[in-house]
């Protein structure tokens, strides 16, 4: 039996990335994610990889672009203000179809905001945070184990679709320690050789170009349609969510990441009190589990959405099930304390009885 480790979420995502074959990391220090570069700067040299503490977030995302265009599995990590700086590079990566992993251990904003846990980067993450109307894959782990597992999944999805992938978490998931069962990475069978990547392999007459500039008549439109066709495929094939006690649920609670963990206890307490409540936890925030919301509200169930912000994912829930009664309860970034299961339970009771 593999030994269970006891590690922080931040360390777990770094461990998962290295296990997935990531050998290039570029980043810049920012709280509360600095455990990631600290761990990788220690471990990467042992694996023969490269760690660069870049001069800025802007430089690190562009180093990631260069490494990705060169065919490597590579990553960066940051927290909200730093992720804002990376948006330029993320847009270019999306435009030039460069895969890669971006970890956002979200903190509260806007501006310098604060360092406490927040989910206020949801819109930025899932709606295309930079210019140009693109999407990236967004995964929302809710445990230390998932931080590890989803680092691998993120690389696989990113490589499969040539779409950048983000792991969106916060200080709760990043700073929390839990048991972790490490396991060997196995690459999916369907991952193709990156024949588009620049490897300097000396084949004359087969120029490879990684670019996002399309000035020819109709070229850019075709390119954008191509990108959005990939998003449509992902919407069918790559949606992931967790359902807890949904079968007979009259009220469907929804939350992701840290908030989902708090909600899990609240839902258990509600069940103990005889309320028919379930939890639908989106794991892929993009592609969003629209169909799951349709399925689990088809008998007239109500939905209650918890977030650590003033209401963001709830908009995607409402778009998924426009005729469903969807309520929202959230905490503004910087509340200073986290919501508790008891607090969520009160909300559940109110909406359940309403």
């Amino acid at each position, binding site marked *: 039996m593999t030994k269970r480790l006891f590690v922080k979420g931040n360390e777990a995502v770094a461990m998962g990335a290295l296990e997935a074959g990531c050998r290039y990391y570029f980043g810049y220090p920012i709280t509360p994610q600095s455990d990631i570069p600290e761990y990788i700067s220690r471990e990467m040299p042992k694996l023969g990889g490269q760690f660069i503490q870049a001069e800025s977030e802007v430089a690190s995302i562009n180093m990631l672009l260069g490494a990705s265009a060169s065919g490597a599995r590579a990553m960066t990590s940051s927290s909200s203000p730093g992720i804002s700086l990376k948006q330029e590079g993320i847009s270019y990566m999306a435009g030039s179809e460069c895969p890669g992993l971006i970890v956002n251990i979200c903190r509260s904003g806007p501006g310098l905001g604060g360092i406490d846990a927040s989910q206020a980067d949801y819109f930025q993450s899932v709606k295309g945070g930079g210019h140009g109307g693109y999407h990236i894959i967004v995964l929302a782990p809710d445990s230390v184990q998932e931080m590890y597992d989803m680092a691998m999944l993120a690389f696989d999805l990113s490589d499969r679709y040539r779409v950048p992938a983000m792991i969106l978490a916060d200080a709760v998931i990043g700073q*929390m320690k*839990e*048991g972790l069962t490490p396991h060997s990475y196995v690459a999916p069978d369907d991952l193709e050789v990156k024949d588009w990547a620049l490897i300097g392999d000396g084949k004359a007459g087969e120029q490879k170009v990684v670019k996002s500039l399309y000035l020819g008549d109709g070229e850019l439109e075709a390119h954008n349609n191509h990108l959005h066709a990939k998003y449509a495929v992902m919407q069918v094939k790559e949606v992931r969510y967790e359902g807890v006690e949904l079968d007979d649920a009259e009220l469907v609670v929804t939350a992701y990441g840290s908030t989902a963990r708090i909600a899990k*206890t609240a839902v258990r307490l509600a069940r103990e009190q005889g309320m028919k409540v379930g939890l639908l936890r989106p794991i892929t925030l993009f592609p969003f589990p629209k169909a799951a919301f349709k399925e689990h509200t088809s008998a007239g169930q109500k939905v209650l959405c918890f977030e650590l912000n003033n209401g963001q994912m709830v908009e995607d829930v409402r778009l998924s099930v426009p005729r469903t009664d969807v309520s929202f309860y959230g905490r503004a970034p910087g509340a*200073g304390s986290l919501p508790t299961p*008891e607090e969520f339970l009160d909300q559940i009771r109110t909406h359940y009885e309403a």
Partner: protein
Amino acid sequence: MNHDVYMAGFGGQGILLIGNLLAYATILEGNQASYFPAYGVEKRGGAATCTIVMSDKSVGSPVVGEPEAALLLNPLSMEKYYSHVRSGGFALINSSLIDDDGSRRTDIKRLLIPANEMALAIGDSRLVNMIVLGAYVEYSKVVSVDSLKEALKEVLPERNHRFLPMNHQALEAGAEFCRQAFAS
């Protein structure tokens, strides 16, 4: 099994260490645990706090509003967190630093433990945390003292292993104190 405990004191009292230790020992016993250190604003003013949630199934919320148990090591922690302890729960109070006559809460179990004096008696004032942890596991039985010892070996860097006997002594002294207190 489903337990949670909130630990609070000032920085330097070793709160985060015993939080880690308890969660790790739980995992060594084959159960699940989350260790969540207070973060951000709550960290200000030199306070050290953490929440440990332990379960034989998967752990839900790592955040707890009304903990089943609280280990309160200094007056400020008492001030801030004592009232949050769940009705019917348990508070372990470091009576070396905290005065409490028991009138504030009658709906919970209390144990006053003179942890500073006990630590000095063993020979090192820094053992306050281990004494308190020993008392807590004796009361709650969430893990065995042996598992804590096992976990400590892994949590402490090799170069500090010479301090293991002293820490073991402190864990046992805390456990013994708790046994005596509830026996009488």
